[in-house]
């Protein structure tokens, strides 16, 4: 088993929205940033992986097993965090821990759970309803990491949180990935988080997976050219991924390999790539 996640021509129709067909392989031991606009299909993909939705076509394998054949025992290997902590908010910390302890049985790791609770400084007596958004996410992450999961599926966990908390999440994911059998897929539209730590970037747009590439290669293979409109005409059209025209010239997102080497190019960020590609699609 080399791939932690395998999607094979997965398709799902939800009203007017069509996801896929998506094929995607995630090798184990890495962090994948799953990016795209709101409504691009990030959550739908993750819900399909978690069995909340059922694919119309194609198959999904997590940790080598088809999710259709998942037993409760296999599900213990999957940790998940959503944009909110979806458990009864009347629970306090003790109740919530007790609930998860019963849910995960022998796989439950109290020590890890307690160490995260201490680390995050979560309040023991407050009901979850009085937790801040950040605290809820931290608690959700605590639960996801406290049953020996080999695969973490995180759906916009850090949306709406302040940068310091987002940064902590990054640290925790990097710690988690110290075990090379562990894998993370994290969806987000806040790209700065993923920019740092992700090994792969998968980009979904309007239900279609536009690419899944190694982040370094992706960033290194592209560049931004600032040119006058005349100069821009000389650029090989197949090199241009996206462009932004303004009154005083053009900025082009280009493939470095298809542009003469001596041209002065700016480095790109994942965000640049995403924005240029989405805007190009709109035109």
């Amino acid at each position: 088993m080399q791939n932690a996640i395998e999607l094979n021509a997965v398709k799902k129709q939800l009203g007017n929205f069509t996801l896929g067909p998506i094929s995607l392989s995630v090798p184990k031991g890495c962090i994948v940033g799953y990016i795209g606009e709101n409504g691009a299909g990030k959550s739908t993909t993750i819900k399909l992986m978690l069995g909340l939705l059922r694919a119309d076509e194609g198959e999904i394998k997590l940790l080598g097993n088809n999710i259709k054949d998942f037993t409760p025992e296999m599900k213990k290997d999957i940790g998940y965090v959503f944009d909110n902590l979806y458990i009864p908010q009347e629970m306090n910390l003790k109740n919530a821990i007790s609930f998860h302890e019963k849910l995960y049985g022998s796989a439950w790791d109290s020590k890890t759970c307690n160490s995260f609770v201490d680390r995050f400084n979560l309040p023991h007596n407050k009901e979850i309803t009085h937790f801040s958004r950040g605290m809820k996410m931290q608690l959700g992450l605590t639960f996801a990491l406290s049953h020996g999961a080999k695969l973490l599926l995180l759906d916009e966990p850090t949306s709406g949180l302040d940068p310091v908390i987002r940064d902590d999440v990054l640290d925790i994911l990097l710690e988690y990935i110290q075990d090379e059998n562990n894998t993370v897929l994290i969806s987000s539209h806040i790209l700065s988080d993923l920019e740092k730590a992700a090994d792969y970037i998968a980009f979904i747009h309007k239900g279609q997976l536009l690419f899944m590439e190694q982040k370094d290669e992706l960033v290194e293979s592209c560049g931004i050219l600032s040119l006058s409109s005349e100069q821009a005409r000389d650029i090989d059209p197949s090199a241009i991924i996206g462009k932004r025209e303004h009154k005083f010239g053009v900025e082009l997102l280009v493939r470095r390999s298809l542009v003469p080497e001596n041209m002065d190019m700016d480095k790109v960020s994942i965000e640049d790539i995403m924005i240029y590609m989405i805007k190009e699609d709109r035109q």
Partner: protein
Amino acid sequence: MKALIYKDIVSIKKSLRTLALMLIIIGIVFFGGGLIRVFPLSFMYVSIILTGFFFGKDAAYNVEQYIIPAPIKRSEIVLSRYAILWAISGLGTLLALIIHLFDRGGALSIPWYVVLPGNFLLISLISSIQLPALYKFGVEKGRVIYTLTYILLFSGVSYLGKNKELLLNIVETISNTNTVLLGAILALLAILINAASYAISVHIYSSKEF
């Protein structure tokens, strides 16, 4: 399943006290009205109300999205709800038996083997209709069903309360028929209806998407 029952109880623990208080008041009212034998039937309200609470909480906090990917089968998620329903029905039935032991005599001379399945059937009946409906239509539309059953019950009980003779007639007819057979039929009916309800709920829930 233990986890889910725990979750359900914890999430409504504040409402439980109110519910207990309500039961006591109903009990006193029924006792005063000479209808203590009918009192265990009010447990059917308990199961209806609790079911409403549970589904309401789940919907409000999107709990299903959290427990479906957890290491538990969908059939067990459904079973956890039925377990609570059956526990309440059992409790009501037990209470009916105790009252039966202490309140012998009068026209109400129904044997215990009719009291037991009869109470269980009546207490679990509405919920076993309601649960599959809630799974199928969700809480919002399920509320309509909840209200309908509530009105039906309420008018039924108040009708019986106003027409005591009718109640007594029924009881009389029952006691004149073969009570063993009646008990057996009631028991069979109770099991069949609950089993069918559970099977239907599991079937509905298995194909549900979130």
